[in-house]
């Protein structure tokens, strides 16, 4: 066992021990009186209509995927914009190739009707 790890294990033991102790102390000290309304999930004060494990439209999934297209786009565009002068034409070409591929994906999704609600 490398000696360098000893503080790490002490840290882990302390962290776990602290959490367990706090939970235990709270359990002993607090009064316990459960009733139905109190155990209900708090949704902005509105009573929960259905269970959260129901089925929902697959459309949300498509929207999420489309969001990823734009999200990833930003992830790459932002560093490029920051280092634009250093990267020069190389950066322009790379980003153009990258955007072309993404835009093709977007056009495809649009043509397939992924953006039409209902």
């Amino acid at each position, binding site marked *: 066992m490398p000696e360098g790890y000893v503080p790490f294990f002490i840290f882990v033991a302390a962290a776990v021990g602290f959490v367990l102790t706090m939970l235990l102390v709270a359990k002993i000290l607090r009064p316990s009186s459960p009733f139905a309304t109190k155990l209900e999930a708090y949704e902005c004060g509105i009573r929960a209509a259905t269970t959260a494990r129901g089925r929902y439209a697959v459309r949300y999934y498509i929207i999420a995927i489309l969001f990823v297209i734009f999200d990833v786009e930003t992830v790459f565009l932002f560093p490029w914009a920051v280092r634009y002068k*250093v*990267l*020069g*034409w*190389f*950066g322009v*070409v790379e980003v153009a190739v990258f955007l072309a*591929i993404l835009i*093709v*994906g977007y*056009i*495809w999704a649009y*043509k*397939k009707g992924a953006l039409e609600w209902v």
Partner: protein
Amino acid sequence: MPASLFPPYEDLLRILPEIVLTIAGTLVMVLEPALRPERKRLLGGIAIAGLLVALWGTAVANLFRGPAFHQMVVVDGFATFFRALVIVVGILAVLCSIHYLQRERPDSGEYYALVLFSVVGQSVMAAANELIMIFIGLEISSIATYVLAGYLRDDRRNNESAIKYFLLGSFATAFLLYGIAWIYGAAGTTNLVEIRRVLSTPELAPPRFLVGVSAALMFVGFAFKVSAAPFQVWAPDVYQGAPAPVTAFMSAGPKAAAFAIFLRVYMTAFEPISNRWEPVVWLSALATMFVGNFAALLQNNIKRLLAYSSIAHAGYVMVAVSAHSEIGTAAAMFYLAAYAFMNVGAFAVVTHFARQGEKYVDVDDLAGLGHRQPVTAALFSIFLLSLIGIPLTGGFFGKFYIFKAALEAKLYWLTVIGLLNSAVAAYYYLRILVVMYFHEPGEAAQTVSPVAPGVKIALWASAAGTLLLGIFPSVILDFADRSAALMK
């Protein structure tokens, strides 16, 4: 300084096949929604054209041998061989698919784009010289193949196949990735040549235990992808459920590419610890041959039978891997080429014969095909005889070179067991021949329609490939021999 960020043009030429295939795949995706349903078959033409240009691109890239992009990829004979192989498999698969798609679901052409993207991944795997590239290539190839396996969304069997393949495949890839993480931690690099250097330098070498764990974890990932025992359980279910042309594709292309990275990683990076992985591969080869051949004896569904046969053939290639020599690598390369032709050919016959909704996929359904369609039956016989390993077919020389390599590596027991296994295998292949020629034509054979043009080309091309490798094996073998010495 900024100008030097551009890669030299040779680097771009070295990945020409991948560039061509990506453009072709993207083109198919854009055109797909623009075309009217009756013109969708045009997309199959674009896919084939793209694959042919990529084949040319492979030849161009081969003129510029050497590492590219900071040694991320390397173009050598080995890479060229496997690139050409996966592209040819792609062409054959698309030829089989055109009619199949019109029959089953005429309204979507993304299928061809997915085939192209999968071939891109396999091509990257063939040329990758770095563990991260290997992982990326494997993922590109696998994700496209998962979708292809479930392409007919309304078909229950397709769904089962895709979900099983996806869940188990992702799990196996995670093992591979974990193995990569371990070796990166131990050796401090993901470049295969660098890893080899670190492992074989006594002052730098990390504890062998760490390297062993990494090699074992990566073995799990690779063995899964090539369907070697004990990680072969997924193959029969997935092959049976997937559309027949997709099965043809994924039993040849991804498997060949997976063997390519398997060989490259174990022959270069893990070469210094070969005494540790050789027994593992030896055992796996043994188990794979037994499981594949003996389970195939009991199958009635022809796709399932060919799936087990495909496992058995992976076992023969594993024998070549455990020989751990250049001649073994060359034998594995030759065998994979021969196997690709005969297996895609056999699945092309299944594609043709299965009819709407894959109704006729039992061995007994083939009864009397020899009388109804003598040409199709004769071509199928060539593939089956090659799968058995009868002389004058590619399968014979494939087995011959593998067992020769095994004998030279003094793997006597494995050779004996492999030969006995081939004898067992003859039984289930011959059973198909007997049913086809000596049984009275049943309902399936009587209603069989003429072979569609695309499937016909695929059948003849596969048969030509099988016979070419069986009559003039030196054409391919010389190239394989010269390419087997991997970059050290």
